[in-house]
């Protein structure tokens, strides 16, 4: 049976960690940038989601150290696990298949026309 789809917050966090470990603020900044501030995760949402992801072994803590780009406070870093990478890969494939289906029905094309008409 196919795995359950990931929530947008979980997928965005995994995607942020695919290319290297990050601390909470680093994850939050990357997600905000990627979604053009469409998905802003506050401390409660970010650490609540990370807590569930740690329990599901999708991510793991990789120690504490200061971020040279910020201040000299020590920060807790997170990295993606093998299981997390597989889950992110499956989710990306699921979304790709959905987009393919939308293209096959000319949904994206139609939308572009509609946007063009509005201009």
């Amino acid at each position, binding site marked *: 049976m196919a795995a359950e789809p990931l929530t947008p917050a979980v997928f965005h966090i995994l995607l942020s960690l695919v290319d290297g470990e990050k601390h909470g603020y680093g994850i*939050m900044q990357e997600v905000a940038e990627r979604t053009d501030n469409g998905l802003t*995760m506050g*401390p409660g949402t970010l*650490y609540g989601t990370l807590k569930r992801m740690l329990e599901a072994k999708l991510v793991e803590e990789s120690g504490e150290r200061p971020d040279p780009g910020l201040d000299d*406070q020590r920060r807790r870093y997170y990295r993606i696990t093998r299981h997390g990478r597989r889950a992110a890969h499956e989710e990306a494939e699921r979304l790709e298949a959905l987009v393919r289906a939308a293209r096959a029905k000319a949904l994206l094309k139609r939308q572009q026309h509609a946007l063009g008409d509005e201009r």
Partner: protein
Amino acid sequence: MRLSERIYRLLLKVYPKRYRARYEEPMAQLFADQLRAADTTWKLARLWLHTAADMFRTLPARHIESHPHIVLGIDHVGGFRNVAWNSSARRSVFFACYEARSFGRSSITVEDLLLGILREDQAVQELAGGAAVVEGMRQAIEGRESAPRAEQPEQRDLPLDAACKSALALAKEEAPRLGAQHATPRHLLAGILQQEQTLAAQLLHRHGLTLERLRTLP
């Protein structure tokens, strides 16, 4: 340390102790990082608005998780184990536990469950007849208690009493009967209505909320 950061650190105290032990410092640090980026009054106001919404959204879930006894308890009530509770039903039981504690009870009753549902679910409040009727129900339940409510009830998990367990089990049966995948506060209400001898069921009946009416609602 800026005033906003001090206020946020104080607000974090409302999260459960176990959760704070691990996440209080990183959360405060993240807020301080956001604060540094909020260099205008408008950005600061927006940050506080987002932060308040963030706390409002996440606080009930963290408290529910910190009471595994209740959450696991309600998962194992009744034979319909494949029917899951939705988050609103879980919050209703969490609030019911709070009600029971404030009355100084040793277990959660169906009256506590009714108060928990009314606290959680706006749609159920409307079904029951609106804010005035809900207040009347609350007063009727409080009026039966011999002692006044405790202002700061002790933080501990409580078991469900027999009628409340039965109401939860019937709610789980009600969900698939009505074609729902998850048991919701409305199904909990159906479970309460079947505990006919209880004050909670009688109060609902008195205000025209019967099982038949509940089952025919869209």
